[in-house]
Each structure stands twice: as C-alpha cells, then as structure tokens.
C-alpha cells in the first residue's frame, strides 16, 4: 500500500498503521479523529493519505484539510496533529 519516495496514488489511513505503531503503544488507525477544519469525525483509517518521502500527509475525506502529518528524520519523528481537534482512542478489550 505504501509508496514512499515519490508521488504515489492516494492511499488511506490503514497504510499509516506501521509508522504510527512505531510511536504509539496502541493502534491509532482505529482511533476516531475530529477534523479541525470541518468537525467531521471518523476512523483515522479513513483519512486520505499521500506517502511522499520523508513524510505522510493525511487529509480529511470530507473537507480535504490536512489532519495529520508524520515526518521522519534519521533519528526522530515529527508528528503534526494541528488539523485534529482530538483523537478518541479505543482501549483494548472494549
């Protein structure tokens, strides 16, 4: 699903699962985001994602605003969540 290194076709938030699980202890693709632009809410897995090295850009399918950016540097990851009002994370066993 992922196409790092060049402009690939649009993917979805499912394809961010591995990169996000490097940072978080839970699966964030199953979490619900609320878009800061339009207040649309849905699973992170439904975001429209472009993999353009070195970063991931995830946009709201309702309004196209950027909801999440993940940028990799050699020794760290920058996570930009300003497009998301909140993340609602289901806990295991629920």
């Amino acid at each position: 699903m992922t196409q790092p290194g060049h402009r690939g076709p649009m993917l979805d938030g499912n394809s961010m699962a591995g990169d996000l699980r490097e940072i978080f202890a839970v699966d964030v693709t199953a979490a619900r985001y609320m878009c800061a632009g339009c207040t649309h809410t849905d699973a992170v897995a439904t975001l429209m994602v472009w993999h353009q090295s070195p970063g991931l850009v995830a946009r709201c399918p309702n309004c196209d605003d950027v909801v999440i950016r993940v940028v990799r540097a050699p020794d760290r990851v920058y996570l930009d969540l300003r497009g998301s009002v909140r993340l609602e994370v289901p806990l295991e066993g629920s």
Partner: protein
Amino acid sequence: MARTAVSGRLIWRAATIAEARWESPTARTLVLDVPDWPGHLPGQHVDVRLTAEDGYSAQRSYSIASAWPEPGGKVELTVQRLDDGEVSPYLTDTVQAGDQIELRGPVGGWFVWREKSTAPVVLLGGGSGVVPLMAMVRARAIAGSKQPFRLIYSVRTPEDVLYADELRRRVRDDAGLDVHYVYTRKTPDNWPSAPKRIDVAAVNTYGWPPDFTPDCFVCGPTTFVETAADILVALGHDPRRIRTERFGGTS
C-alpha cells in the same frame, strides 16, 4: 489474540521464506517463518522492507492472507506483481525459499473482522484486494463461526482469480459462505453476462440486504473501493458498518 496483536512496541523482524507458490500467472504467495509471531487478526497487514547493498531501502505494506492460528505457525502474504514496481517483482519473481526479508507487524486494527461479531458479512474485493478478505474467510472456518459470509470478487479474467481452487472447495464445504465473481475484461465460457464492472445489481443480488445490518468490508484499488462503497451506501447500508482499505497500485 487481539491483545497480542496490538500491544507492545513494533519492531522489524527477519522473516524466512519457507515456501512460495503461484496463485495466478502474476501473483505469488510467500509462506513465512517469523520468529515469535504474536498472532494476528484477519484484515491486518505487515510492512515489508528491502534494503540494497548500498543502503537504499524501500518499504511496502502487504495484507496477510492467512488466518491465525495456523497449524505450522506460518504467516502467508500474497503479492501481486506490478511490472513497473520496485518491490513486488522482487517478491514474486526473485525471492526464493530460504531467503530472508525484513518485516514488521501485524498492524492495523480497523480493517479487521472479529469472530465475536455476530453480524452477517459482505466482502467486496477488487483484484488483489481479495487477499485480506481471504484471511477473513479462512479465519471464519478456523473459528467454526456461523455468521453467513458473502464474497463478491471483481477480477479481470478467470486466469487472474486468486485462491480459485480453495474458494471452490470452501463454497462446497464451509456452510454459509457464498462467492460471486464479477469479471471486468474476460469471462469464462458460457458466463451469463458480458465483462462488466461491479454494479448496483451485483451488490444487490449477491450481497446482503441492508435490513440484515451486515458488516461490509471493501478492499481494492481506490476507484474500486469508492465505487463499491458508494453502491453500498446507495442501497441503504449504514456507512458506519462499511470498512474500506485502498491500495493505490502497490509497487
């Protein structure tokens, strides 16, 4: 199982190719030995990383085709070759038993089917989008689940069908499983309709009615996923019960 599939920090592991088999002229299943595999849910995927001698590395995601637990403890990926791809031709044509690849996972906790779910299930697969849906069909059989499954599988030609023999056998042996094929370029001989894309009639006839409140899983190329999901919504299915996974031409 769900717990082991989602907890703990994610690490890259070395997986060894135990066996490889062709599913179609352009798709191959890699059977992997992965030390300390924690188990997975059907629908999850793994990231695969290849690194060249000069340090250049490429990473792709592949859906897991097998269910868990698997008697031999193996994990299977089915890879569709894209001729202009950077990674898939290596995995379909070059890699062989005994070779190692780097892998991390399982990942993805949204596009998954859970055996405790009691709803009937509609699976809509386009091309190699059938792979994670096959994991669900296999998991249903392993769990002995009674939830009725209907798979609508859109594929270019009869030769491109993945898991053809197994699906034929499962339709016969797995009570409550139905499979319908939509051929987009070439049909088998004596097929009742000309080649066509998935449409309202096919989903209406071979899926479950919205009154049954089925869980719907749609996987394939972006255009297929958007068309199929739109059809489900137009037929009255609750969007909250429709889960989608797009792959934009994995290379």
